[in-house]
């Protein structure tokens, strides 16, 4: 093997690196390495002239490999690998040494930072010395997408993808699509009716030739990788054939079981056989197995008796299918922060204290009270209503540290809608700050304050409790410095948004990361906001972070665009950095076969053989092999050994 000619390109990143790392010294030290034929430092390596200079230097100096010491490989590994290819050398002979995120930004001491940057760079130079040129593995793409979650984010993503001529499977856990938006009354800042906007989209989803709807279904398992996922979907049994159901409502009239209605957030009840709401998609009743007396004509059987359409089938069984898709959009939405976590705000046990979504149902024309605002305890019209913002948000000590972003706006909306319904009522809003960035948002809040005569009190509520048929709210007005006590007829908490329970589960199933608050983690906070860290899996809506409807729709469209771009390719490049067996050292003991999480290794003629289509390159085999007979290409034990040496030199 002739000696490598490696080029080392040290980036200053303006002062981001250069301020705390002596970049000239790093370059000097690297030029002393046996395999380094060229070094250069530059203020912004990733800029146009920087990249050009990399390409030119590779050509001029006949380099066969490069190390760019700069920021995290998550940012510019691809940039510089593309440059390597442009300059005519194999892109897998380019590696990044991360001396910014993992060095210059975290160590103020320049001497120590420089020393560490040299070690990092040297170890990568040694690694590159044994990197082999490699061609990406081409794999065919399954031209079908799956969208998980049938709220507005999922609906929008599904429609956008389907309209591009790509087949979409939309998976929804509930019996109907529509999600949270379906529960809203009117939307800020235009006050247009939520269902009026959403229902046509739901119908379109249902009718779209490219969309296959799977409601009452959950994703259980995912295998494969970008371009070729195999997803196991479990469809619960609804015991009603949607094609036969005429939604005549006779079944609910005879059903003896009464349970709280989830869609109405418990403000009303429903029967064991029910339709979530009148315009549900698919338009069919669903029999709630958990509530039903026993799916058995002997136990009850009343609904089946009255169903003239013969749509009810007690023998319907859950079905698990395996769907093959090339890309996945996760749009699993949000839940509200549990009021039980906040004893100071009643802990969810004080009557007439509602959350924002319950209030939406209360003022919705289709809601429990047909749009009349009546408080739950005595069905009287509340005259004093206190709205409490930041209930659970912006409270790092006790609750969620983050701002839930939409509460300022919907609280203003709630106050306005309340005043519209109860013109002689008094609305109070406790707030910390008003955050109304967005088109027409600030004006909307101002109108709520001025035109609608809502009393905004800057401060937190310390306590609330039931007193004499009212809810006593104890708070502070920090602008006047006075304590405020209000005997309210009703209190509405703008609870923090949290990732839905389903989001946490799906993140585990898909092995995609979550951030410190549990929301799905994007691949890069600025540059890759709709991608997960796993290739082929995209994010949309409030599962990624609190956001309002326009933002959700925009993100769903962006995720759809990514999916379309991905699935428009005939083949995908798969990383060739997969396991390779050194046959001479393999004794066929089979430990790697047992350790491989992907069942990608088998024994053939007494030797381990890697299935290149299944291997993900995790290296579990190589760490298990007692004989170093199996290695991940370009991350071999030999390379790690030399990197260890470089780190300790």
């Amino acid at each position: 093997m002739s000696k490598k000619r490696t080029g080392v390109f040290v980036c200053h990143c303006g002062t981001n690196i250069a301020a705390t790392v002596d970049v000239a010294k790093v370059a000097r030290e690297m030029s002393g390495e046996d395999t380094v034929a060229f070094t250069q430092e530059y203020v912004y390596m990733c800029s146009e002239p920087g990249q050009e200079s990399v390409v030119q230097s590779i050509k001029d100096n006949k380099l066969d490999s490069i190390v760019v010491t700069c920021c995290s490989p998550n940012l510019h590994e691809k940039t510089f690998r593309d440059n390597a290819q442009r300059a005519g050398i194999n892109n897998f002979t380019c590696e990044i040494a991360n001396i910014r995120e993992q060095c210059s930004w975290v160590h103020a001491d320049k001497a120590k930072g420089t020393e560490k940057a040299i070690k990092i760079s040297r170890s990568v130079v040694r690694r590159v010395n044994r990197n082999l040129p490699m061609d990406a593995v081409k794999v065919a793409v399954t031209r079908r997408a799956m969208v998980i979650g049938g709220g507005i984010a999922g609906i929008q993503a599904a429609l956008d993808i389907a309209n591009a001529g790509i087949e979409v499977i939309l998976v929804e856990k509930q019996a109907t699509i529509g999600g949270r938006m379906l529960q809203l009354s009117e939307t800020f800042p235009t006050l247009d009716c939520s269902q009026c906007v959403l229902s046509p989209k739901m119908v379109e989803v249902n009718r779209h030739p490219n969309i296959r709807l799977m409601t009452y279904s959950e994703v259980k398992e995912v295998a494969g990788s970008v371009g070729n996922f195999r997803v196991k979907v479990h469809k619960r049994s609804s015991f009603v054939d949607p094609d036969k159901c005429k939604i005549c409502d006779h079944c609910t009239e005879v059903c003896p079981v009464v349970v709280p209605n989830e869609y109405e957030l418990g403000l009303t009840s429903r029967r064991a056989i029910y339709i979530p709401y009148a315009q549900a998609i698919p338009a069919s009743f669903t029999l709630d197995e958990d509530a039903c007396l026993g799916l058995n004509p002997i136990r009850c059987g009343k609904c089946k008796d009255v169903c003239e359409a013969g749509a009810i089938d007690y023998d319907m069984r859950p079905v698990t299918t395996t769907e093959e898709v090339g890309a996945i959009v996760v749009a699993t939405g949000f839940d509200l922060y549990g009021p039980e976590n906040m004893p100071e705000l009643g802990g969810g046990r004080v009557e007439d204290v509602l959350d924002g979504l319950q209030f939406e149902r209360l003022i919705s024309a289709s809601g429990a009270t047909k749009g009349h605002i009546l408080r739950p305890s005595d069905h009287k019209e509340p005259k004093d209503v206190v709205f409490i913002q930041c209930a659970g948000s912006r409270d790092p000590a006790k609750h969620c540290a983050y701002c839930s972003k939409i509460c300022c706006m919907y609280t203003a909306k709630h106050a306005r809608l309340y005043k519209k319904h109860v013109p002689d009522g008094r609305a109070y809003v406790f707030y910390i700050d008003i955050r109304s960035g967005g088109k027409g948002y600030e004006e909307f809040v101002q109108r709520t304050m001025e035109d609608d005569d809502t009393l905004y009190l800057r401060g937190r509520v310390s306590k609330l409790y039931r007193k004499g048929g009212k809810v006593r709210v104890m708070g502070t007005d920090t602008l006047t410095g006075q304590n405020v006590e209000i005997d309210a007829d009703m209190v509405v908490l703008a609870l923090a948004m949290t990732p839905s329970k389903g989001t946490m589960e799906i993140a585990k199933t898909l092995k995609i990361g979550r951030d410190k608050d549990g929301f799905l983690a994007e691949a890069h906070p600025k540059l890759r906001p709709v991608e997960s860290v796993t290739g082929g899996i995209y994010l949309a809506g409030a599962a990624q972070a609190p956001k309002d409807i326009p933002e959700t729709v925009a993100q769903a469209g962006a995720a759809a665009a990514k999916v379309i771009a991905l699935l428009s390719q005939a083949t995908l490049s798969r990383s060739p950095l997969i396991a390779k067996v050194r046959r001479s050292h393999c004794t066929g003991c089979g430990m790697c076969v047992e350790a491989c999480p992907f069942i990608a290794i088998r024994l053939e003629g007494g030797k381990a053989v890697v299935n290149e289509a299944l291997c993900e390159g995790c290296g579990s085999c190589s760490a298990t092999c007692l004989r170093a007979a199996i290695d991940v290409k370009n991350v071999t034990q030999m390379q790690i050994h030399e990197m260890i040496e470089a780190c300790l030199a």
Partner: protein
Amino acid sequence: MSDQQPYEPKIVAFLCKWCSSAGSDLAGVSRIQYPANATPITVPCTGAVSPMYIMSAFNKGADGVLVSGCHIGDCHYLEGNYLARRKMYLIMKLLEFIGVEQNRFRMSWVSAAEGAKFAQVITDFVGDLRPLGPQDKLKRAEIK
């Protein structure tokens, strides 16, 4: 009084690419400062960390070795960290058994969201290693 500088331990940190290396990146993006003693080597997965790496690092003069990866259940490769947990437990016990100070080997789970935790793990590790001074039990003699 002596104005002697505290001993600066040399640490090799094996970070999995998906969680701990990303967590370390986040510490950087958040500008959370921590000691510069640990040199990272990014590996695909903690499951790829051979016990040989740990011994080799000590043999080549590391004062401490860290292996950090995704939390249980979060492994990008499904099971790599489970395999690592068992292997690393065994090597840790073996090191302890021959009398190597417990604090010289450490394992942690640091997710991509835990920048602050990564900084803390390194800070704590360095703090625990300083009083131990240089590691010379497994260190090859000719390496000064």
